[in-house]
């Protein structure tokens, strides 16, 4: 029995995980969601911004980060548009422009925000840190046109925007190390306030920056997205998926405990 448990076919585990996803998807279970402090901090920061303030959102993820970062991007954009906070979208990831532009247009349409007046997507520029540093001096010097090719001088939202001095907050949705770069090159150098929404893999790296105040808020993975959807009272994929996620986590915790029990019993028997 013990040997069978220790040598369980990995495909059985895959089937169990698949079932743990499929069954709750069909049952539509709703578990309670409590809001963590870092998520609340970002929500409060944006909520306290005056109408007609401008924030910059950096969509630094491709299709692989979409399941975790799109729901939080959707929620933050919705909060901004509902509060009449203007949004400038940029990306430093070559595979992000289409995703980011589609998302901004979709939420703007839902919220009645006008392209060019309430939001603009500037698109992608290569260079990473150089783009971050360059925008500190002149955004138009880095992005001459927006994503659709319109010159920045002709876009109403950009009329009074020269550099980071006119930006109230930068929110970085990241599946890589860009948040640390934004902190390094935009916060430390130009004192731009930074917040972040990140994938699960890099959440732990972000907490030291929260503690020092280098980040004003943090949306942590799919659970953070669900919390944000709860805060803006707009349940969507984040809240739906975190419920399913909880069942998978229960299964994984159960399997880890089972594996450890079997491991210790076998060790004792061998002794």
């Amino acid at each position: 029995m013990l040997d069978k448990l220790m040598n369980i076919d990995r495909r059985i585990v895959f089937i169990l995980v698949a079932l743990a996803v499929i069954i709750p998807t069909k049952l539509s279970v709703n578990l309670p969601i409590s809001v963590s402090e870092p998520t609340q901090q970002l929500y409060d920061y944006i909520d306290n911004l005056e109408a007609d303030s401008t924030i910059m959102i950096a969509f630094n993820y491709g299709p692989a980060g979409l399941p975790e970062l799109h729901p939080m991007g959707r929620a933050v954009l919705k909060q901004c548009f509902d509060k009449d906070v203007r949004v400038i979208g940029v990306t430093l990831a070559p595979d992000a422009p289409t995703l980011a532009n589609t998302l901004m247009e979709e939420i703007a349409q839902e919220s009645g925000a006008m392209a060019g007046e309430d939001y603009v997507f500037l698109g992608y520029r290569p260079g990473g840190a150089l783009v971050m540093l360059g925008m500190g001096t002149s955004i138009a010097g880095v992005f001459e046109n927006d994503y659709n090719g319109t010159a920045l001088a002709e876009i109403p939202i950009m009329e009074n925007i020269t550099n980071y001095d006119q930006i109230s907050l930068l929110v970085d949705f990241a599946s890589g190390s860009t948040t640390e770069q934004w902190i390094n090159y935009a916060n430390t150098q130009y004192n731009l306030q930074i917040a972040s929404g990140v994938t699960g893999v890099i959440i732990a790296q972000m907490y030291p920056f929260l503690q020092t105040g280098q980040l004003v808020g943090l949306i942590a993975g799919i659970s953070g997205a669900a919390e944000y959807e709860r805060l803006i009272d707009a349940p969507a994929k984040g809240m739906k998926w975190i419920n399913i996620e909880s069942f998978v986590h229960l299964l994984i915790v159960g399997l880890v405990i089972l594996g450890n029990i079997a491991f210790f019993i076998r060790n004792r028997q061998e002794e």
Partner: protein
Amino acid sequence: MEIFGIWLAAFLTLCIYSFLYRDNPFYRFAEYLFIGISVGYYIVIYIHQGFIPFAWEPFWAAVKPFWPGIPREAGWIGLIKLIPIALGLLFFGGLSPRHTWLIRYPSAVLVGFGSGISIPLMLRTFIFEQTRGTVEPFAAINAGTLSPWGILEAILMLIGVACTLTYFFFSVEHRGPVKWLSKVGIAFLMIGFGAAFGNTVMGRVALLIQRIDFLLNDWIGMIMDWLGSIF
């Protein structure tokens, strides 16, 4: 077109997941298709967003005044733009074993420029600010403005930082008190790795949920709607 896209995405998703059973031609097909499309996409992006605006257009602007039949406007000063382009071209020296040494020049510029910008900022961001963050709560303790929970957090953090740094301090042999401090450091490291692992599991499961959500609702949902319209 949208229907075709959903079918294609569903087929490729199933091809990739078929690897969970075992390696097979369907998985290989999807894998190679993904790599091929990714490489093609990135090449086009880098040509349009990198090569053309930052190499080709400056090059053309620099040499245009010297092109036969075009009136001279800019002059010799425009040729300065050729220096960074030439430096960039030296990277291609790596293609020939005899000329690999040419890479040293652009590399030296990149490293020098990068270090000049990054080192002062990195010291502030990752060393000074983090050190301030570690000791600052003790000023609040001294002022009596920190809650008991905050005091515990501050003490734990200081212990964690000191012990973890001790673990990575190899100039002293890890014996006696140093050994115990580094062992506590290992415990803090393990807690950190555990948190990172847990969050990674959460992220990976989110990817699975999104794909299954797509298969169940978008793909099978579309098939069911189609069947419903027939019967």
